[in-house]
C-alpha cells in the first residue's frame, strides 16, 4: 500500500440562506504511511471542513459533499456505509480537537473516558480497558496515572486535558490521526510540549497524521509535507524544507513574510492587504487575485490549476504566473 489516504477533488458545500456554497473546492492530496501532512491556512479557509468531511462528521442538515473520493487504506470514506465509517472512526482514524477543556465530558472521570474508547473499539473487558487506559495515560506522560484516573476534567489543566484527548485518540493505535489545531488553545510552553509529544508518539506508533494549524512556526517542527490552503483551495503543497526555502505561491510567500521573528528587528513584517473573499461571493478566477502583489502581471478571469513546478511532482502550485 503506497498511500494511507488518497483524497481526490473533494468539494464540500454548505447551505446558506441564498443557496448552496462550496466551502472547499477540489481538495486533492495524498498521505503516505507514517507521514505528517500539515494543512496551513487562515481561519475559514476550509482546513477543518476538509478534516470533518473525511471523518464523516459534517452536520447532517445543511451540508453535503459535492464531489470527490477519499481512499483510506483502499476504501472510499465518502461512499462507504455510515455504520462502517463509524467503526473506523475512533479506531483506525481518529481526531484531536482544538479545545481540550470542552472536548471532554464534564461529568465523567478522565480515566473512564479513555477506558471507554478502548472498551468500545477493542473488544476487551472493563478491567483490561482500565489497565490499557492507565498505560496510555503513562504514555502521554501524565504523572501518577493511578490517581489522575478518577479526576474529572475540571480538576485538570488545559495541557493535561489535551494529553487525555491524545491518549483517547491513540487508544486503539490508529493508522491516521487528524489533529485539528491541537495546540491553539494552550499556552506557548505547553504548545511545544504537546507538539513534541505528538511527534514522538507518531514515530512510536507508526501512524500518519494530518496536522491542521494556522501557525507556520508549528509546521516546521512537525510536518513532513505542507499543504497551504486559501479560500477553500490548496494553493501550494511541498515537502516542508522546500516550502520554507523556496515558496512559490504569492500567498505562501506573503504568509512567510508576515511571521514575526525573535532574531530580527521585524521592521520588514508585511501584513497581507485586503480580505478573503466571502463564501457567497467567490471570484471566477484566481481567488487570491485581489490581494496578490503581482496582480498587474496576471489576469483575474482564469482559474489556475494545481500543477507541478519545475517538473517536481512533489511541489505543486496553483498560480497562473508560475505555470
Amino acid at each position, binding site marked *: 500500500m503506497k498511500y494511507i489516504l488518497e483524497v481526490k477533488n473533494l468539494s464540500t458545500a454548505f447551505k446558506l440562506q441564498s443557496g448552496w456554497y462550496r466551502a472547499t473546492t477540489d481538495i486533492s492530496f495524498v498521505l503516505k504511511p507514517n507521514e505528517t501532512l500539515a494543512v496551513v491556512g487562515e481561519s475559514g479557509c476550509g482546513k477543518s471542513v476538509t478534516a470533518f468531511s473525511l*471523518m464523516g*462528521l459534517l452536520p*447532517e*442538515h445543511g451540508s453535503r459533499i459535492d464531489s470527490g473520493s477519499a481512499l483510506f487504506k483502499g476504501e472510499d470514506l465518502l461512499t462507504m456505509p455510515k455504520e462502517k465509517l*463509524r*467503526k*473506523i*472512526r*475512533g*479506531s483506525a482514524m*481518529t*481526531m484531536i*480537537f482544538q*479545545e481540550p477543556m*470542552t*472536548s*471532554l*465530558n*464534564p*461529568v*465523567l472521570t478522565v480515566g473512564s473516558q479513555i477506558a*471507554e*474508547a478502548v472498551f*468500545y*473499539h477493542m473488544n476487551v473487558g472493563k478491567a483490561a480497558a482500565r489497565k490499557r487506559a492507565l498505560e496510555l495515560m503513562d504514555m502521554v506522560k501524565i504523572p501518577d496515572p493511578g490517581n489522575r484516573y478518577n479526576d*474529572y476534567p475540571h480538576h485538570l489543566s488545559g495541557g493535561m486535558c489535551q494529553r487525555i*484527548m491524545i491518549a*483517547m*485518540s491513540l487508544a486503539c493505535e490508529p493508522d491516521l490521526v487528524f489533529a485539528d489545531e491541537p495546540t491553539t488553545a494552550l499556552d506557548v510552553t505547553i504548545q511545544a510540549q504537546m507538539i513534541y509529544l505528538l511527534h514522538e508518539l507518531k514515530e512510536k506508533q507508526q501512524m500518519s497524521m494530518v496536522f491542521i494549524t494556522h501557525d507556520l512556526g508549528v509546521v516546521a517542527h512537525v510536518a513532513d509535507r505542507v499543504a497551504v490552503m486559501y479560500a477553500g483551495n490548496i494553493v501550494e503543497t511541498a515537502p516542508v524544507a522546500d516550502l520554507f526555502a523556496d515558496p512559490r505561491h504569492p500567498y505562501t510567500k506573503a504568509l512567510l513574510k508576515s511571521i514575526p521573528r525573535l532574531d530580527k528587528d521585524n521592521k520588514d513584517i508585511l501584513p497581507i492587504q485586503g480580505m478573503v473573499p466571502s463564501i457567497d461571493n467567490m471570484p471566477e478566477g484566481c481567488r487570491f487575485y485581489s490581494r496578490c502583489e503581482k496582480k498587474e502581471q496576471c489576469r483575474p478571469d482564469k482559474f489556475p490549476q494545481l500543477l507541478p513546478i519545475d517538473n517536481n511532482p512533489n511541489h505543486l502550485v496553483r498560480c497562473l504566473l508560475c505555470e
Partner: protein
Amino acid sequence: MNTIARFKHLGTETYHVFNRNKTSWVGLLLLTILVLLAVLAPVIAPYDPVEQHIIQRLEPPSSQFLLGTDYYGRDVLSRIIWGCRVSFIIGSVSVAFAMFFGTILGSMAGYKGGYFDSFVMGVMDVLMSIPTLLMGLLIVAILGPSQTNLIIALALTMVPRFARIARAPTIAAKNKVYVEACQAMGFSDIRILVVHIFPNILGELMVMGSMWMATAVRTEAALSFIGLGVNPPTATLGGMIREGFKDIMSAPWASLYPGLVILLIVFAANLLGDGLRDALDPKLRNEK
C-alpha cells in the same frame, strides 16, 4: 449540570448551596417524615383504616382517636397515614413512568432533530394542551377508576412535560464539543445519549421530578375528591375530604386534616424542588 460528579462529592458545592437555603432542609425533612409515615403505615397506624367504630361516629379528636373519627366511625389519623401511602405510591410511580418515557422521547427528539423532532414534539404539544386534571378525568372515565388507571392517567399527562424538560438540555449538550468528540471516537448515538448526555441532563430532570410529584399528588387528590380516584373504602386523602365534606360544619376534622396533609406534601415537595434547582444550577450558584 454534572450531576454524578456533584452527587459523588455531596460534601462539596451542591451540598453547600442546598445547605445555605434552610427552607430546602425543611422540605426534605417534612417529605422524609411523610414518606416514613406512609412506608411504616401498618406499624404506626393506631387502627385499621377501614375498621368502623359505629358507636363513635364523627367523634371529635380525643386521646382515643387523635384526629377524631369520620361518618362511618373510622379513625381519621389511621386513614390519613394509609392515604399518604396511596398518594406517594401514585405520585412516585406516575412520575417515574413519566420521567422514563418522557426522557427517552425528549432526548431522542432533541438529539436526532429534523422531522423526528418535529413529529414527537408536535404530539407532545397536543398532549400538553389538555390540562392535567381534564386528561385525568378523560382517561379515568374511559378506563374506570382504579389505582393503576390513575397512575396511567397521571403519567400520560406528565410525559410531555418531561419530554420538553429533557429535550432542551439535550439540544444544548448535543452542540458541545465533547459530543462531537464522542462522534469522532465512533460511539453509537445510543451510547452517546445514555453514557454522555444523560448524566448532564439528570439534574434538571430531578428538579422537575420533585415539582411534578407535588402536582401528581394534588391531581390524584382532586380526582379522588370528585369520585374518580381509587375506589372506596381504600383510604385516600382526596377521598377523605369528599367523604367528610357533607359534615364539614359539624365535624370539620374529617376533611380538614387530610386537606392539611395534602398541603404539607405539596409544600414539602416544592421546597425540595426549589432547593435542588438552586443547588444543581451552576448559574444560580454563582449568583449567591
